[in-house]
């Protein structure tokens, strides 16, 4: 027994190490970046220390002015000024130029620094600037998590709504949730009759129909989305056909609209709804229906009181799967959607690639992960089974 366990441990260990090192720890680190705050403390250690001891009343002592001028200059030398500027600019727009200007002028500044800094940039004369610097001293911040829900922190630590022009994430999550819900509803509604019919078809036909569902299931998401991209072009076949039939006067611009996103998502995710429903339904014993009929139930009663409740686990599994995949989907909206149809994944990608704002990417990831975790947990509770994913 003990030796078997050793063998088992030996067999599991390599994969566990890979998953730990290449997935669990990275995901954990990433999530930690949603609250981590070290740019300012690293680049401006002395300033941070002085500000930490400051009582927050009025302006900080002269030493703080001196330290910030010196350390900003040093950060410019060490090419670390970009991180600090980005971090502070995210807290308050306009801070970037203040910090960069001060860094470049650092050599020329002379004591008393309080006066010369304010002369260089009026912001240094405002208490808020210093409070912001102090609150960025680390080691952790709720800035990103708050911002990802359209809240922001006042310099004295209170939580308020973000400025109107910077509020977009709640809308983004609602949009992601709404599109996913719509896609899930459409998929479930389309999948149920298909799964039912296939499960009830006779021998060769049921396998043939199932194969027709498996073909899109096995083909790549990108290939299928590309197909829609081609079909929905202004000069593409769909427009061509609709114009030819006289249903349209002029070609419609579908690419870049919400319709294209929903269409592509439904197409990509529909097999994931059909297959679990089908597998539950084929395992349903037809004698349940016979029993119901022998007890007096008519067709509708048989469906509503026996078939539907028995096939519900398949519906839940399929629906949960589609929702799960839709919520995290990047490819389809990125390819066929417009700027206003993008979902959370696209924003995460942008924060990583374009803005290089790790904090926001991590905060959005954390919320997305929480959302999918809730769905998986709910589905597991409701179905008592496995819910997996692909795509």
């Amino acid at each position, binding site marked *: 027994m003990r030796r078997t366990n050793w063998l088992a441990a030996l067999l599991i260990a390599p994969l566990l190490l890979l*998953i730990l090192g290449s997935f669990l720890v990275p995901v954990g680190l990433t999530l930690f970046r949603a609250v981590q705050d070290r740019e300012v403390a690293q680049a401006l250690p002395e300033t941070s220390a002085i500000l930490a001891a400051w009582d927050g009343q009025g302006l900080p002592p002269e030493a703080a002015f001196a330290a910030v001028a010196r350390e900003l200059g040093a950060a410019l030398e060490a090419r670390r000024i970009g991180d600090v500027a980005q971090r502070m600019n995210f807290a308050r727009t306009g801070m970037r130029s203040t910090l960069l200007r001060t860094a470049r002028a650092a050599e020329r500044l002379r004591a008393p620094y309080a006066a010369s800094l304010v002369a260089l940039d009026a912001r240094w004369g405002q208490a808020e600037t210093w409070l912001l610097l102090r609150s960025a001293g680390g080691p952790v911040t709720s800035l990103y998590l708050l911002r990802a829900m359209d809240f922001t922190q006042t310099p004295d630590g209170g939580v308020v709504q973000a400025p109107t022009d910077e509020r977009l994430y709640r809308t983004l999550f609602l949009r992601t949730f709404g599109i996913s819900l719509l896609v899930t509803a459409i998929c479930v509604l389309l999948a149920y009759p298909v799964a039912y019919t296939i499960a009830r078809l006779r021998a060769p036909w049921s396998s043939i129909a199932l*194969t027709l569902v498996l073909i899109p299931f096995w083909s790549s998401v990108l*290939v299928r989305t590309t197909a*829609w991209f081609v079909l929905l072009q202004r000069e593409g076949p769909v427009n061509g056909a609709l114009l030819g039939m006289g249903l349209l006067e002029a070609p419609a611009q579908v690419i870049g609209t919400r319709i294209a996103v929903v269409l592509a998502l439904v197409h990509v995710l529909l097999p994931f709804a059909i297959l679990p429903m089908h597998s539950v339904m084929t395992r349903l014993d037809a004698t349940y229906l016979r029993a119901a009929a022998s007890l007096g139930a008519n067709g509708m009663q048989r469906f509503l009181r026996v078939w539907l409740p028995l096939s519900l686990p398949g519906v839940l599994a399929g629906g949960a799967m589609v929702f799960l995949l839709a919520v995290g989907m990047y490819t389809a909206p990125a390819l066929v959607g417009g700027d206003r149809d993008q979902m959370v994944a696209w924003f995460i990608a942008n924060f990583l690639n374009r803005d290089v704002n790790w904090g926001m990417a991590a905060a959005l990831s954390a919320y997305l992960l929480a959302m999918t975790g809730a769905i998986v947990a709910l589905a597991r509770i409701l179905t008592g089974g496995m819910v997996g994913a692909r795509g």
Partner: protein
Amino acid sequence: MREHPLARILLRGATALVLLFLLAPMVAVVVLSFSPTELMVLPPGGFSLRWYEDFLTAGRWVLATRNSFVVAIATTLLATLLGTMAAIGLQLGRFRGKAVLVTLLTLPMVTPYIVTAAAMFFAYAIIGLTGSLLGLVLAHTVVAVPFVVVAVLATLQTFDANLLRAAASLGAPPMLALLRVMVPNIWPGIAAGAVFAFATSLDEFVITLFMAGPGQFTLPRQMYASVRESLTPTILAAATLLFLCSLLFLLASEVLRLRAARKLRA
């Protein structure tokens, strides 16, 4: 129990329409890829292989194909080996918390790819694995391996544990018993997992987008880039070839499923 005839006609009609919706785009892409002109209209008004020729002679497509297959093959080997070992270990072991372990090992399956991508991008950047094919293989292995674990675990449910006891009673040490008795009995599950791993790697796009270096285009990444750049039928030729691969995967997985079912009955 038969449905009302009208209900049956409606159900079958709806099913046919949905299947048409699922398959029509793929068919259109295949047909358009043989178009003799740049215009993507149906019917294409001719037949030509020029876009396939273009695909096979354009350096970036060839390179992307090579990269894709190198990564997919390496991923399949690694994922199948590690996944099978872990599944067998999970089946053999008698310890608490097994369910938690299975959940941990299959977590990449339910994690949004964008989150996995972000996490790996960040972690691999620290140890300098981004932009290397090795990093890409490791990343793909992480998302492909849960399918191997699940497939092998499923086949193991049907494996009679007494066979291992018999092997032991005949003098086979544990490792030998696993290799000579268990693996030959569960290979359809292992192979099914391998097919899924290969397909996952070949199709994977989001993680590749972040992890691969500037020159390391795979087929999906090249397709995405080309679509954004300018839409040419060469993309459709690539899509058709990928589609062909997925048909092969489907065929392989069905053959394996039948094999497994027959083994079970025997």
